[in-house]
Each structure stands twice: as structure tokens, then as C-alpha cells.
């Protein structure tokens, strides 16, 4: 969110707090409810909008005395599902609402696709929200998480939604303690518990995810600091770091080149992430040399639209341009827009091994001699990716 927006909205919009963890079972819900009990004692008007007990007794005990808004029933394919009753919460209009499992995907038939979208509605109504999230559900970390765990997490939250939170709190526990909880059946019961320990919850995974969560928390904290300092010093001149040959801090600008190749999703996520870390803008571009975009093959067009929309979902401005010479069009656009770094993917043209793919990268490098060119990491194309609305559950969420 732009600083101006956040200031304007400050007075009416609710504040969002995220309890960030690295795995189900680290104690996010528990911590949230404990804080809720404190808030209740301080006289705050609060309700539980949605929470998942997973039949955990210690968690249940902490919900005692808190008002719970009943869930609403939704029937889908002859089965009954329960979702948060956002409209009921709006009618009740508390000061503060607890909403567990921020990354949850609603069942078809609910007003909104994602729980984080329900939370937006609550925030817009001026209700403060506390919610829980695991680091593997942050969109731009999706590839990193898959690299660590071999699991493609399907339920994700766009980074800008996380960035919106005014407070992030890391909930930490040692992997040893977490594995104990899992084995005791305090997180999942029975067979699911055993399966969990053997797959996603391998100790090496947990250790790496924990490090990722700590780094993410540090990054989120740092970004908020940077934003508030920028707001404070917007009238002053910020001293720029002198760095020969590269733009001073704050003046970097990233352009990413979208293609129909599935690797484009990874490219978008990576560029978004680097832009956030460097505190800089990010643009996306697709260049076609056919006269008209509609002349493209329907399948290809659909893929490109999907990738451009994916970029827009992550708040990256996306454009389509026509150009006889793709490399030249890209570099000229970059120069016109003061871009300092161009992000490309290895799968930039249909056949990666074809000399054409290398040629485009090579031509961009040759022409953009005043910019850095980043060819982002990829994996062998082993599975389709880039869907953010997939309903497949690759891992148990909690």
C-alpha cells in the first residue's frame, strides 16, 4: 500500500495483526487467544470470527469467555461446509475480530474466494483483525518453499496483503518441541499425525521453514520501518549510498519480461520479492512481434494473460507492447521507464534449448549495457505452476 493511502485510511480502516509461524502446531492460535484474553480484560469489544481448534484442548481452554460468531453453512456438491460468516460479523461490528487461517480458500458458493478477502471486508468496515498465517503461504516464497520441502503449497496470500498488516508477530517454538507435539497427537490425530511427521514435517524441513519465517518476520519489520521513515523524511533529501555503476538506494527499478512459458510465474514471484527487498518499483511487460495481440495463438494468449494477471495480483503494473524486434522494444521501454534491472526467465521462448531463447537473452544483454540483467533460477519443468486459485491440498493446513 502506498504511504499516502495508509495515512488517509488510517482513521477509518481497521488494523491488521498477523501471527506468523512456520508450521501448523507452533502455537499461533494459542498465542492469539492468549492475547485476546488480555484484550478482553482491558475492556476491548472482541469476537472470534473463525477459529480452528483442531480439537486441541489447551487451545479450546483459551477460547473460554470469548464470544464466537457462529459459522455459516454452505452446501457444495451435496456436502455441508462451514465458513466464516462475514456478514454476521459486520452486523455485530466489534472493535476486534479473531480470524484463524488467513490463507484458507472458501468453498464455492461463498461470497468471496479467499478468507483474506473476507478479512479485507472486515478491515474496510473499520474492524481490527488478528489472524494467523504460516510462512509457506506467502505467495512470493512459494518457489523457495517448494525448493525446501518438495511441496507446492496451493493456498497462498499475495505479498501486498501481508504488507498491509500493521503488526506482524512471529510465533516461534523449537522444531524439537513441535515434533514432540506432533508425535503426542496434539496437532493432528492418528494416521494423519504419523503421515505429517514423515512428509512435510521432516525435521530438516521444519528447521529450514523456521529460518525462513524468522527472516520473513525480520523483513516485514524492516519494511514497516522503511515505510515510516520514508513518510517522515519525504520532504527531506535522503542521503544516497554512493555505489559506482549502479543506482543509489531507492532508485532501482525492476522490469520483468513475461512469456507464455510456465517459468513466468516463478519469474514474477522472484522479481516481486527482490523488489520488496530493494524497496523498489516493479513493472511487467509482454512484447509480441505479431501486429496484434489477438493474432497470437489462443492457448498462448491465455497463458500470457494469466501471467500478466498473476503479476497484477501481486501489485505489479503489467503492459503489453508490440515490437518487431523484441529485445529492442524491451530495452527501449526499460530505458524510457528508468529501469535499472531487467528480469528474464530461462524459459523465455517456447523451446529453451533453441538458439532463439539464448539469442533474446543475448540481445537484451547487448542492448541494455547500462542495466543489470537477471536470469532467474528455474527448476526443470516438472509440474504445472502459477495457479493461485487451485483447490488441491498439497499439505494439511492449520
Amino acid at each position, binding site marked *: 500500500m502506498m504511504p499516502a493511502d495508509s495515512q488517509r485510511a488510517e482513521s477509518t480502516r481497521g488494523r491488521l495483526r498477523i501471527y506468523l509461524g512456520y508450521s501448523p502446531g507452533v502455537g499461533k492460535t494459542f498465542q492469539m487467544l492468549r492475547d485476546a484474553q488480555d484484550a478482553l480484560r482491558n475492556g476491548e469489544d472482541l469476537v472470534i470470527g473463525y477459529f480452528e481448534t483442531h480439537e486441541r484442548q489447551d487451545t479450546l481452554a483459551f477460547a473460554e469467555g470469548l464470544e464466537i460468531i457462529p459459522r455459516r453453512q454452505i452446501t457444495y456438491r451435496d456436502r455441508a461446509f462451514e465458513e466464516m460468516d462475514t456478514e454476521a460479523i459486520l452486523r455485530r461490528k466489534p472493535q476486534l475480530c479473531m480470524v484463524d487461517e488467513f490463507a484458507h480458500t472458501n468453498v464455492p458458493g461463498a461470497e468471496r474466494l479467499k478468507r483474506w478477502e473476507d478479512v479485507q471486508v472486515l478491515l474496510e468496515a473499520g474492524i481490527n483483525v488478528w489472524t494467523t498465517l504460516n510462512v509457506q503461504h506467502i505467495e512470493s516464497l512459494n518457489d523457495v518453499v517448494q525448493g525446501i520441502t518438495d511441496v507446492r503449497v496451493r493456498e497462498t496470500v499475495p505479498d501486498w496483503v501481508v504488507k498491509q498488516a500493521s503488526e506482524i508477530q512471529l510465533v516461534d517454538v523449537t522444531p524439537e518441541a513441535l515434533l514432540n507435539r506432533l508425535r503426542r497427537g496434539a496437532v493432528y490425530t492418528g494416521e494423519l499425525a504419523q503421515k505429517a511427521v514423515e512428509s512435510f514435517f521432516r525435521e530438516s524441513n521444519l528447521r529450514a521453514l523456521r529460518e525462513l519465517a524468522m527472516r520473513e518476520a525480520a523483513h516485514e519489520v524492516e519494511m514497516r520501518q522503511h515505510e515510516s521513515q520514508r513518510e517522515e523524511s519525504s520532504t527531506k533529501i535522503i542521503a544516497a549510498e554512493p555505489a559506482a555503476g549502479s543506482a543509489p538506494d531507492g532508485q532501482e527499478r525492476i522490469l520483468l519480461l513475461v512469456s507464455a512459458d510456465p517459468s513466468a510465474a516463478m519469474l514474477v514471484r522472484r522479481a516481486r520479492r527482490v523488489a520488496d527487498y530493494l524497496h523498489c518499483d516493479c513493472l511487467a511487460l509482454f512484447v509480441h512481434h505479431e501486429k496484434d495481440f489477438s493474432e497470437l495463438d489462443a492457448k498462448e494468449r491465455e497463458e500470457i494473460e494469466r501471467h500478466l494477471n498473476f503479476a497484477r495480483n501481486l501489485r505489479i503494473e503489467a503492459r503489453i507492447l508490440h515490437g518487431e524486434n523484441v529485445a529492442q522494444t524491451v530495452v527501449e521501454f526499460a530505458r524510457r521507464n528508468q529501469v535499472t534491472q531487467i528480469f528474464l526467465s530461462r524459459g523465455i521462448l517456447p523451446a529453451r534449448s533453441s538458439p532463439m531463447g539464448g539469442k533474446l537473452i543475448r540481445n537484451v544483454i547487448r542492448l541494455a549495457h547500462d542495466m*543489470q540483467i*537477471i536470469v532467474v533460477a528455474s527448476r526443470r519443468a516438472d509440474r504445472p505452476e502459477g495457479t493461485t486459485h487451485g483447490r488441491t491440498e498439497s499439505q494439511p493446513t492449520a
Partner: protein
Amino acid sequence: MLDEARRRKERGEDVIVAACQAGALAEVRTFLDQLETIPTLRTSLGEGLHMDAILRRKPQVCVIDPLAHNNPRGFQNAKRWEDIEQLLQNGISVLTAVNLLHIEELRERVEAITGKHTRESIPREFLARADEIVVVDAPTRVAMEHRDAAVAESASTRESRLTELREMALVLAAEVVDRQLERYLGTHGIAQTRAAQERILVCITPRSNGEAMIASGKRNQERFHGEFHVLYVRQSRVSAAERKRIKHFLDLAKEAGAQVQILEADDSVAAILEFARRMRITQIFVGHSRRGDWLSRLWRNPLDRLLRDAETMDLRIFPQ
């Protein structure tokens, strides 16, 4: 920390308290009163752990708060962390807590932020050796409620100060956890290719724009709180001027805090790739010239090879 002590007690472990903060909250007091306590030894100069009594009693778990403490003269060890090492060697587990400002290596930075000087410190290495580390985090605004009345400052200054400390604590914990992870992967023979941490490798050649590459590498390292390596694969037929340039780059790299590595190899691309895989690098920085450099002379070969074989890494290409 006390929650952990309580859980362990409930599980039937033999837990005692050997030191606790004087200014503890009432509820903390109530809890501590339920545990067996070995009071600290007091002398006219101050206090320290009653080591003999603890070692005689030999509990399974010992709660010691705070960790950063200087023992007065007359005690065996000058620092409390040395006492704790001794307890650990005697098979006693220790639960303890430390504030960021007491980490020796970070003291200067923390003091610059807080303006407060502390004499009690522990080496970072001690923390890195801990079997377990847990971050106690809270949103900055919550932490602000625990005011330090002695310091007069505006709310925004205080918030920004606390935020900065919070970020440092999180990064420090992440680094400790990273070392534990490396140890774990090592002892269990697990190859995990993707790391949670960014590791940047800048490859310099005599003709590369080394200054820009190293500056950019450093900035990326700082932003990502990552690792920073600079590699030079020695080339044959290097002129005196080029040798001087390389020396200059390597000096810059050291100044920037990079881990510098010089390798001898006939095939520099293979050497870069081998090094990058071994160090679990996530971003490789290479230079590229429109004329004359090894990369462009053998264009088809080296860059294509890097593009193909360093597939799990970002390749950042610098004009020169």
C-alpha cells in the same frame, strides 16, 4: 522461558531455579515460588550463581535469568556464561534468556541505537552453540507499553528504535537457526538444495566492473541479510595492470565484508559452478563485456553453460 520450565516440570523433569530477575512480575513470582530455588551467593561486591550448591544438587534442568551477568571478584568465573558452560559440561540443562544488547559483536550497533552502554555481554559464539533458541517476539507497539521511564524521547523515535532492535534480534536468531540447520543436514547426510538464506556469489575477472558488482553484492547481502562471497578464478596470461586491478577488487571485497576465495582452474565456468553448488549459492553475479572479455569471446560457451547448469540460481549479469 518460564513456560518451558513449567512444561518440563509437568513432564516430570527435575527443574530448579538458580537465578531470576529481581524486577519480575507478580505472576512470575508466584510461579517461581512453586519451584525449588538455590539462591545466588551474595558478597559485598555483588552476586553470582551458587555453583557448588547447584553441582551438588545436580538437577536435570536449571533456570538462570539473566544470561548476561558479570560475577564479582572472588567467584571462579568472571562471566555467567562461563558458569553455564560448566553446568552443561556436568550434564545439567540450562534455560536462560538474553537481550540483544548483550551480544558482544552487536553491542556497538545496539548502543548506537539505544544510546545505552552495557558492561555485561556474551560472545555470539555462545549463542550459536545453544542447542535450542526461541525468539520471544511482540509487535513493536505492544513492546512500547513496557516503557523505560528513564529515557525521555518521542513515541516515534522509540518505536523506530525498538523496531530496529527487533529486526536485529530476528536476523540473529535466523543466523543461529541457519547454523543449526547446516549442522543437522551435515550429520544426517541430507542434501537440501534450496536454502532459506540468500547466498550471493560475485565472480570477478580483471575486466569486470568489479566496483559496481561488489557494491551491488554488498547491498543485496545487506538487504537479504544473506551471505556474501567473492570469487576469483585465476586466469593465465594476466598483465601486470590486470593483476593490479584484481588486487584492488579483492581488497574492496574484503572491505565490504565478503568471504573471498581464489581458485586455480583451467575451466573457470566449471570451477564457479562447483563452488556455487557446494556453498548453496542462490545468486551468481558475473560481468559481461561487449568486447574482449572471456565471457563474450567464448560467448556461446560460458554464458550458455552458466545459464544451463546454474539453473537453480539467479544469474545477475553486469555490463562492463
